[in-house]
């Protein structure tokens, strides 16, 4: 189905200073400023965010469902890639 509305933008919100921006959803907008304003009104009007990113949806390169096998499965049987065998010194654990 073709979308007859304005271009789609992906919205990322940062809940508080210092934490990563997380994907919140998407909005339609004719340009970047409007995308930012629409993102603010749709995803940040109740004080959910301290910072917003908007990215044209077309700029996102995504893996396909058919990639799932070769991309992600091999990680499960390679325990040496997981560093949890090591005992971390107390000073490090504080972080």
């Amino acid at each position: 189905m073709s979308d007859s509305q304005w271009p789609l933008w992906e919205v990322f919100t940062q809940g508080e200073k210092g934490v990563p921006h997380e994907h919140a959803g998407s909005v339609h907008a004719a340009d970047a400023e409007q995308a930012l304003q629409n993102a603010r009104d749709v995803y940040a009007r109740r004080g959910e965010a301290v910072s917003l990113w908007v990215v044209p949806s077309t700029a996102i390169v995504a893996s396909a469902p058919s990639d799932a096998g070769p991309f992600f499965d091999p990680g499960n049987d390679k325990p040496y890639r997981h560093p949890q065998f090591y005992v971390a010194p107390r000073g490090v654990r504080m972080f």
Partner: protein
Amino acid sequence: MSGHEEASGEPVVAPKGAPPKIGAPREAPVSNPLADYLLRLGDDRLILGHRLSEWTGHGPILEEDIATANIALDLIGQAAPLLALAGTAEGQGRSEDDLAYWRDPVQFRNCLLVELPKGDFGFTMVRQFLFDAYSVLLLDALAGCGHAELAALAAKGLKEDKYHLRHSSAWVIRLGDGTEESHARVQRSLDELWRFTGELFVPDAVDAAVAAQGIAVDYAALKSRWDAMVNEVLAEATLTRPADGPMRVGGRRGRHTEALGHLLTEMQSVARAHPGASW
């Protein structure tokens, strides 16, 4: 909701002396200028908020529908404590709800600009822009005034209004500098609305009286800053600023267009159908 019975009959401002002759301007002295001034601030935002809320479910696109509803809520949220403060200043025990739902048009003190029917989306955005620019400057001035509660409300509202202005100016620019049709429509809206802008900057006896109580706004300075803001956006929008002709006034003294009566009929219908109901 309580005490509405005393609200429905009595005008907020009791004219002293003989009643004015029919057709003569009602320029009786205002008995309580502070209450009247706070009503002007509250009513502007209540009525404009209601006008904007009429777009809910009818916005040109989902995101804009949410944006206009959001701004409408901001404005009604600003109106509530201003009306509560007006009720306190009035000293007759009227709450914000009594003032919003149990006054008649002649008792409202909003400027005419905000009560005009919403028109098309371009008309709504041009009106919003003209008011937002005024409101940002006014609240900025009031945030430093000598009335502590009003200053606090102005500082809070100012943050919201700066966003409203960013939103409405972006639309004026987009539509003005858009297609041939969008340009023609917003230019026509601007031409229609212009004669209602003069009222925003004409101080009267109420302004003079509250200035003596520490709420002094320099309207000449406000107007020149407003002119600069408006000119900048209109230039970017490729719109022509209308010439300053005769200006429509009267809202601040309760002389309204017929549009306010229709608006209030709808806005007050639930409260008046169920007096004293709480929800």
